[in-house]
């Protein structure tokens, strides 16, 4: 049958202009009837100013509780080819590195089984294959695994961990983000593919405090590289930056140091490293002259999330410094302890950050076996409503 070509006068207006056009992308795949109908339905949304997808249904592949998001059109009679338009989340290689060969393999599989439309990548980090039908899920999965790929996470599970490019390209990587991300992903395959938590749990690994994967805002567990010893200074290179005149050393660097631990006398840059909070600003400004120290590790923070449902949170410190070394037993132990506690006592759809707000950080630390320390708070409490415990009871116990 001749497939109907959809008219898209509104979307067509988004083909012009200097920025790459998603409408052009859709049209590149319109020879696939699913995508042709997607174009039609999207045009309808642009006309109606409302979305035309229904709630996802439970769809998936055998033995997995996640990785596939069901999606159904609410105007299926009019756009039958995209009546079912499920998403498959494919776990990306750490750091989002590819070769042309492996990308072509994914494209060939998706041309055969799906719409030909993707996201490179989704917000959590997965390769997103957008648009296929229920019968195609299992064959797609089998071809993907034959090509060496597996599904990512969805639902109340560990979500696909992601990381910055780390040591592959960045001199500021204070631990091997890609190695840790890959290792955690492999270690926790069951937790990712078979949802058993109160809600989602995201892990993101950033190699330095610049936090290029936004772990402090977007991950339940944020692992951010840092160091303990002195910033390494090449004074000749410092003077070269000053001579180049792209910034004012006093106003733009020294005075912007959050702890004012730097001084510049016109010839030599001094840093009181005992007061440095490792913010990265001076290093960012002068990558050729300043380098992080060599005693390296990471800060572990916990609990960030978007607003749903108790309000947005940033992650907060639970381990001020940890050496990140294979086989990563320390991180795995703390992760497992958190999951055990939260899985047992967390409410349905309660992220770990909200769980901590409810039970208290002090209680949380006690139950996962971490000692409280002043690095975990901005300041001690100001209210006197303290849940004192009966010390004599503890003594007896």
């Amino acid at each position, binding site marked *: 049958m001749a497939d109907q070509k959809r008219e898209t006068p*509104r979307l067509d207006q*988004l083909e012009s*202009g200097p*920025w*790459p056009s*998603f409408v052009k992308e*859709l049209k*590149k*795949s319109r020879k696939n009837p699913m995508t042709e109908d997607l174009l039609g339905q999207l045009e309808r949304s642009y006309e109606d*100013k*409302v*979305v*035309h*997808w229904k*709630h996802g249904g439970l769809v998936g592949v055998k*033995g*997995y509780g996640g990785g596939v998001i069901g999606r159904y059109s609410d105007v299926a009679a009019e756009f039958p080819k995209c009546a079912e*338009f499920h998403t498959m989340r494919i776990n990306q*290689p750490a750091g*989002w590195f590819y070769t*042309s*060969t492996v*990308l072509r393999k994914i*494209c060939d599989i998706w041309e055969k089984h799906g719409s030909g439309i*993707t996201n*490179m990548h989704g*917000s959590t980090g997965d390769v997103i294959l*957008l648009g296929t039908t229920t019968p195609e899920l299992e064959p797609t999965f*089998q071809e993907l*695994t*034959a090509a060496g790929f*597996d599904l990512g996470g969805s639902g109340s599970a560990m979500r696909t961990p*992601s990381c910055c490019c780390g040591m592959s*390209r960045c001199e500021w*990587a204070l631990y091997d983000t890609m190695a840790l991300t*890959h290792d955690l*992903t492999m270690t926790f*395959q*069951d937790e990712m*593919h078979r949802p058993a938590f109160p809600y989602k749990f995201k892990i993101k690994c950033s190699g330095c405090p*610049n*936090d290029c994967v*936004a772990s*402090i*805002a977007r991950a339940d567990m944020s692992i951010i590289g840092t160091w303990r010893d002195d910033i390494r200074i090449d004074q000749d290179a410092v003077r070269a930056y000053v001579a180049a005149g792209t910034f*004012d050393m006093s*106003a*733009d660097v020294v005075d*912007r140091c*959050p702890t004012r631990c730097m001084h510049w006398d016109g010839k030599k840059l001094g840093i009181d490293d005992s007061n440095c909070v*490792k913010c990265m600003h001076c290093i960012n*400004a002068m990558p*050729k002259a300043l380098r992080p120290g060599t005693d390296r590790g990471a800060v572990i923070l916990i609990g960030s999330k*978007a*607003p749903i*449902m108790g*309000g*947005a949170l940033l992650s907060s410190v639970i381990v001020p410094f940890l050496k990140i070394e294979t086989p990563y037993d320390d991180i795995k132990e703390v992760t497992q302890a958190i999951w055990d506690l939260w899985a047992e006592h967390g409410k*349905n*759809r309660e992220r770990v950050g909200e769980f901590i707000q409810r039970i208290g950080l002090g209680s949380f630390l006690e139950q996962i076996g971490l000692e409280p320390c002043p690095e975990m708070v901005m300041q001690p409490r100001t209210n006197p409503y303290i849940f004192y415990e009966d010390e004599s009871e503890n003594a007896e116990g």
Partner: protein
Amino acid sequence: MAVETKERRTDIGPPHYEQFLPPVIKKNYGKWKYHEIVKPGVLLTVAESGDKLYSVRAATPRLMSIESIRLFADIADEFCGGFLRFTSRNNVEFLLTDESKIDPLIARLKKEGYPVGGMGPSITNIVHTQGWVHCHSAASDASGVVKALMDELFPHFEKMDLPGKLRIAFACCLNMCGAVHCSDIAILGVHTRLPVVSHAKLGSMCEIPTTVASCPTGAIRPATVDGKPSVEVIAEQCMFCSNCFTVCPAISLSDAEKDGCSIWVGGKVSNARQEPMFSKLAIPYLPNNPPRWPEVVAAVKNLVEVYAKHARKFERMGEWIGRVGWPKFFELTGIPFTKYHIDDFTHAGESFKRSAHLRQKKGE
């Protein structure tokens, strides 16, 4: 049922990244010395060994056809041995060692419609969600707003002409799949019409206790309507989060005329200089006006221009506002301050001004 002839593989995890790294990265992994942006969109990373790696960054629309991915594969084969990567902000990076190929690669990418830039003090790709293309709860489209915005802000992608980095994010509802809440400028799709309950369907489609429990403000309570078990919504307590819709498809918040976008400013995730911070409300509501959302584009452009004019070198949006104060921000941007700007959710009081430290204006 067809007989499975091969063993079914599960839980194999992602392919190991090492097989996708170019030789220069394998050789210098963890042994890089410094980097510099040699020109917009071109990053030079120099290893302790003296080896050089050039990364050429091009924009993508995030929504990619396999035809375009194949094109990227062809370009990678032609210019850099087939090695490429994607960034956390949906850009593509081609990884080269031959400096002489940079300009031809940039020209080729531009010809194909994927411009190079987005590094340093610039506006790079807008992190965004699915919107009307593929989500069920979207209060606005994502790809369309992003396309319209970046067409307008494009000069700041190709040049490094801003005081500091300016990171923009778009999420099409309060679920914030894009976690936009810590961006210099965030655009957030919002519903503003009360949930409409389909009483006839609710009993069979939703669990009533779960639906009631889903509401952060306790605005939903069980009710019997026309003899059928359902729920009712207490209008004054609803803040349109759409959490009820997430757990119960028989409740709808979408509305062609009342859905729209809110604009938030001054968030960041980097620890550089000041600590990470949330974005704060700048504009409570702008209408959805597809295909090019002129009101949203004009509002964001204004924010970018005011920031570019007034911020000092290296200052992010939130650091600049912190220095000059919020009253000055509203004055300079011309945005009206309303009761919606004052927080009234949990811990709201923490955002109230609790001192007499105010920049008073001399009598007029």
